[in-house]
């Protein structure tokens, strides 16, 4: 990484004093179809190089592409979910360029007739406000091959002597979602960029059209950024930072480019319109290739493919398959479950929403579902390196019904809270259902009030000073006595009942 020269930047505060950022975000999503956009080759991630290619995706002479029906449907569903208009008639176009990642020497894309256009996505920000991101278009295209640059030290293009190309990815269906220039974001620009990509990711996941794994490249973001001097309405020259592949990087890349542009403009320089490369490790962008006449892609309608003209009824059928938008669903569930913002955020971060949902449906209280699926099981899942709690639970045969049963044992008065915790640990250890664990471990509250009263008497006699405090009206001192009683009862007592008896004896 020695070849990267660090460019001048100014502080974020300085940028905001003099400039307003304008952003445009382009997100590429690989669809989760079984086959490629125009041929029947498989799309499995991580296959041996060049084993998922055929004459069509290699662009061999005479090969005839045919559109993947599922990919078109996914594109329409994405467009609808983004509140877009769906084209009644549109075509594919050839984007001509010479670059070895596309063996055909053109990429089949859409040009001035995107399948979806003019939409928006509302994005919730941390401060509780909402920012509306206007969507310019969502169009269908195909992914390119993957190049491995060899001869250099880091696998990067600089210093490489040659490149090795694998075409397994070439032809995988992509949807490119392009925003309109986002103005007025001000200091929130980096946060908005991140929140937009996160919201879009959640939406695509809910649509079940892509696995949206940024780290595997199935969702990639290009960040266009320019600065306008405050008070100006003329757009500045923009740079396009390519392949920003994590939510955190989206935020950092916007911020970095703002500070870099700011330094150049403040020194009286001008921005070079170019592609920039984002470096996740160092948190900077470096110059890629300048925009030039090589960007004349000579688009023309693809003669090997016929137009796509989705009938209105079909579009409406697809609209009916749209899931409740994730942000809306979250709000509804939070209100249904009565969770605080903090509780809901924890539940979301832990990926527990669906599990809690099915547990509540099975008859548990939301608070109980949240309590038992967080805590101990989350700790164990984490220790065992499980992907998430839900996967961990399924692997161990632990179901929502177990939580319902455990809660029932507490409500029915058989277990107190600390016993329930022991029982749950037994369940997680694979000892069986909550009832079976409670039976096997002999866990059961003593229902005999006589034994409890005797224990209270013993404890009061042994702690005369504490007892006196309670008699004098310091009710909170009773806590110490309750602890003693529970100890005396070897934990098998109802703490609430113990408290009642203590107070009755000392203050009643």
């Amino acid at each position: 990484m020695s070849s990267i020269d660090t460019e001048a930047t100014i502080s974020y505060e300085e940028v905001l004093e003099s400039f307003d950022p304008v952003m445009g975000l382009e997100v590429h999503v690989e669809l989760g179809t079984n086959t490629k956009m125009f041929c029947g080759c498989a799309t499995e991630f991580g296959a041996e190089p060049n084993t998922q290619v055929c004459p069509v995706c290699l662009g061999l002479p005479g090969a005839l592409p045919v559109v993947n029906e599922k990919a078109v449907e996914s594109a329409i569903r994405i467009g609808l979910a983004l509140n877009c208009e769906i084209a009644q008639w549109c075509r594919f176009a050839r984007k001509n360029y010479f670059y070895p990642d596309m063996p055909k020497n053109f990429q089949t894309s859409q040009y001035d007739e995107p399948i979806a256009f003019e939409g928006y996505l509302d994005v919730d920000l941390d401060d509780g406000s909402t920012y509306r991101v206007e969507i310019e278009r969502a169009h269908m295209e195909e992914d390119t091959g993957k190049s491995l640059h060899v001869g250099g030290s880091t696998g990067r293009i600089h210093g490489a002597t040659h490149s090795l190309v694998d075409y397994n990815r070439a032809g995988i269906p992509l949807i490119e979602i392009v925003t309109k220039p986002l103005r007025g974001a001000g200091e929130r620009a980096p946060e908005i960029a991140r929140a937009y990509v996160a919201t879009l990711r959640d939406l695509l996941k809910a649509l079940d059209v892509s696995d949206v794994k940024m780290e595997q490249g199935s969702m990639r973001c290009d960040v266009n950024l320019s600065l306008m001097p405050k008070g100006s309405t003329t757009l500045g020259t923009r740079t396009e930072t390519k392949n920003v592949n994590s939510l955190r990087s989206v935020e950092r890349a916007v911020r970095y480019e703002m500070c870099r542009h700011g330094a150049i403009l403040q020194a009286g320089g001008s921005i070079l319109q170019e592609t920039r490369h984002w470096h996740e490790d160092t948190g900077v962008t470096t110059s890629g290739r300048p925009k030039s006449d090589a960007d004349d892609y000579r688009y023309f309608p693809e003669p090997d493919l016929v137009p796509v003209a989705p009938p209105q009824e079909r579009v409406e059928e697809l609209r009916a398959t749209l899931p409740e938008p994730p942000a809306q669903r979250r709000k509804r569930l939070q209100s249904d479950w009565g969770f605080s913002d903090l509780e809901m955020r924890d539940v979301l971060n832990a990926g527990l929403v669906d599990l809690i949902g099915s547990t509540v449906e099975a008859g548990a209280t939301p608070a109980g579902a949240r309590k038992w699926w967080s805590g101990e099981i989350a700790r164990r899942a984490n220790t065992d390196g499980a992907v998430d709690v839900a996967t961990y639970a399924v692997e161990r045969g632990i179901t929502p019904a177990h939580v319902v049963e455990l809660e029932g044992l507490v409500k029915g008065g058989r277990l107190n809270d600390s016993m329930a915790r022991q029982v749950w640990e037994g369940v997680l250890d694979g000892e069986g259902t909550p009832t079976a664990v409670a039976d096997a471990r002999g866990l059961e509250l003593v229902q005999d009030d006589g034994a409890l009263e005797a224990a209270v008497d013993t404890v009061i006699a042994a702690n005369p000073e504490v007892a006196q405090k309670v008699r004098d009206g310091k009710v909170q001192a009773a806590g110490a006595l309750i602890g003693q009683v529970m100890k005396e009862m070897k934990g098998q007592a109802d703490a609430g009942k113990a408290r009642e008896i203590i107070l009755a004896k000392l203050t009643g």
Partner: protein
Amino acid sequence: MAELTRDDVAHLAGLARIDLSDAELDKMVGELGIILESVAVVQQAPIEGVEPMSHPMPIVNVTRPDVVRPSLAADAVLAGAPAADQQRFSVPRILDED
């Protein structure tokens, strides 16, 4: 229409990675010129009020189901490659070249 120059052909050959000798360049300037001239005849067609056609047949929505079909074997894929390494197409490095 502007005349095709020898520089144009050299530039195109470079983009397409076709190695042309000086003699071949001279020959191609002439041949491509004739092709362009011949095709240019269509520019005289009266197209006022005629929609551009991108496909000869008035059909739409030709699709295929999302079902996997066999791909080629990797050695068949690479058979036409000038160079291959690690089961991949080996190509000259791309940047800093024109």
